[in-house]
């Protein structure tokens, strides 16, 4: 029996991936249609947990879209060749993730048909409104940056374009963190730590996504990543994971210092059931400690370990965001300190929230959009990182 090599039949796999991606996207669009026609009553959201699972997906993708550009910035802004070879792929991933995230965000609106109102009626005091500009600006700046990278005639512009993208994405992730930092009413938010936390989270999550896609592309093309480059990238991921841990610990420890925040911290860190479990099990153990062991333990750190570490970092990302967004809302507002309170509107009670299948489908649809853009993008244009074997490794 004649066995065909993967290279001979890979086109079939490509179409299979496309079909799967399309299916997921269609599922997301169908869910959005149902949410729009039936109302959010078919979601698990309510008047206490007003932002649900779609926001977890959307914010994960938008934060990662900014962070994945870190790879490009290190190349263009700081002139590192290893990273510069990866800048086009980073740019493509950024555009894809941003498109997926924004799709989810917009389709989760109560009135997605009115999204144009957000462009025609602009409230300058709203950080949401700032983000409308920041997100569309990121599309434009990254598209221009990709042009300078992929068209030799535009090559001279790649450095200034890289600087522009670098600045823009830092401001953008600051804006995303500020969505929560400006919420003075809620105990989970209203912290100046959030913008820097979001920036460092974006570095870790973006790099993890980059490493997964890079692994898939190298495997698909039956290529081997230079071990020195592999080592450099995995160490960088490790540093980012440690940095996120540090800022998350700082956020919770400072909260614990304020007695008015202790009840909230007790809820998130120990008595909050699913939230406490996701924080410790999902974020700390699976999403931080395990990846660090896979990256830094002697004898580990090979390609498959780094792949697994990257996947786990994303598991941690979802866990942390779920705890932050849903847990932060589920904890009751403290309207009248010094009193226990009951009402027909859930005052004084921890809100329950179970995401519905429509929310899962919408969130997955956003991931599907990003997946399709990347899958088609790397097929029709040359986004595969090309490492020059003659190029010396800087800093080694």
């Amino acid at each position, binding site marked *: 029996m004649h066995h065909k090599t993967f290279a001979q039949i890979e086109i079939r796999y490509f179409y299979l991936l496309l079909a799967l991606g399309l299916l997921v996207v269609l599922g997301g669009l169908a869910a959005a249609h149902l949410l729009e026609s039936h109302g959010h009553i078919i979601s698990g959201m309510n008047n206490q947990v007003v*932002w649900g699972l779609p926001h977890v997906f959307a914010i994960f993708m938008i934060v990662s879209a900014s962070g994945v550009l870190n790879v490009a910035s290190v190349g263009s802004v700081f002139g590192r060749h290893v990273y510069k070879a990866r800048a086009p792929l980073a740019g493509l991933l950024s555009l894809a993730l941003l498109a997926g995230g924004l799709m989810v965000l917009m389709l989760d609106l109560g*009135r997605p048909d009115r999204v144009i*109102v957000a462009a025609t009626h602009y409230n300058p005091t709203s950080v949401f409104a700032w983000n409308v500009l920041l997100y569309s600006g990121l599309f434009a700046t990254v598209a221009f940056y990709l042009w300078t990278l992929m068209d030799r005639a535009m090559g001279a512009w790649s450095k200034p374009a890289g600087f522009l993208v670098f600045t823009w994405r830092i401001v953008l992730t600051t804006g995303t963190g500020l969505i929560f930092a400006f919420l003075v009413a809620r105990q989970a938010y209203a912290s100046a730590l959030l913008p820097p936390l979001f920036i460092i989270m974006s570095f870790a999550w973006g790099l993890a996504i980059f490493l997964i896609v890079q692994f898939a592309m190298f495997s698909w093309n039956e290529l081997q990543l230079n071990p020195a480059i592999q080592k450099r990238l995995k160490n960088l991921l490790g540093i980012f994971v440690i940095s996120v841990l540090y800022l998350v610990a700082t956020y919770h420890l400072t909260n614990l210092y304020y007695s008015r925040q202790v009840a909230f911290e007790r809820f998130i860190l120990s008595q909050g059931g699913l939230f406490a479990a996701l924080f410790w099990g999902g974020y700390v153990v699976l999403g931080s400690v395990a990846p660090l062991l896979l990256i830094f333990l002697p004898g580990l750190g090979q390609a498959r370990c780094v792949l697994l570490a990257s996947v786990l970092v994303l598991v941690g990302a979802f866990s942390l965001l779920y705890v932050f967004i849903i847990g932060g809302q589920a904890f009751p507002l403290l309207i009248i300190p010094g009193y226990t309170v009951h009402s027909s509107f859930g005052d004084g009670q921890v809100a329950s929230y179970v995401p519905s299948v429509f929310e899962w489908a919408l969130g997955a649809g956003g991931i599907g959009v990003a997946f399709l853009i990347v899958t088609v993008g790397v097929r029709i244009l040359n986004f595969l990182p090309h490492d020059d074997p003659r190029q010396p490794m800087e800093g080694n």
Partner: protein
Amino acid sequence: MSCGHDHQRRQFLSRGAALTAAVSIAPGLMLYDFARARPPGEAANSAVRWGMLIDTTQCESGCDACVSACNKENGLPARTLPTDSQWIRKLELQQEDTGRKISMPMMCQHCAEPPCVEVCPTGASFKRADGIVLVDKHRCIGCRYCMMACPYKARSFVHEPVTDHSGATPRGQGTVESCTMCVHRVDRGVAPACVEACAREGHQAILFGNLNDPKSAISKRIHSVVSVKLRADLNLDPGVSFVGI
């Protein structure tokens, strides 16, 4: 025909009796300032700031006349699922150290510096010149950021298609809504439905009026009793104050 006439006559008499009773029960509450009724087409102006003073010592536990009146006036479903709109709700409080119990209504506090207005990306949440905070139902995109920003959990999201349009206020699926201070009544010189209902019950727990008028009943009362504003630490200057907490 005679039946119709009888019905109208009875309706007129009963409304007249209710109005007379309310006026006599709560002078100063109902006749808060009829001179403030604005002619149609005239914009609200900042010479007026509408506000409320809620006396928790007069609010009876278990009484929800204000809530029922609000639901009826605005066509809200009188249900209390977590997804149902509640523009006004009763809070049952117990002081943690003394065990003292308090009952009080809770609604939009109509802040002078409303966070919901600040965060709204489209300007759908807005504050009128007379201090009433509203949502423009044609401009709201349903992002729910205002609900995240409100310290009082005063806003509701319309989770389902609206089938009952009997209320005086427009409502729509996928948009955010909250207490309008019965702006449609106030502009006619009539007190909000909750204020009227509370007075009708004889509790007089909600005093409504113009905070900018030193001669108004609410201003005089605020200057003579100790009152607090909720989450005063946030410096939002709510238009609603409370006595007895």
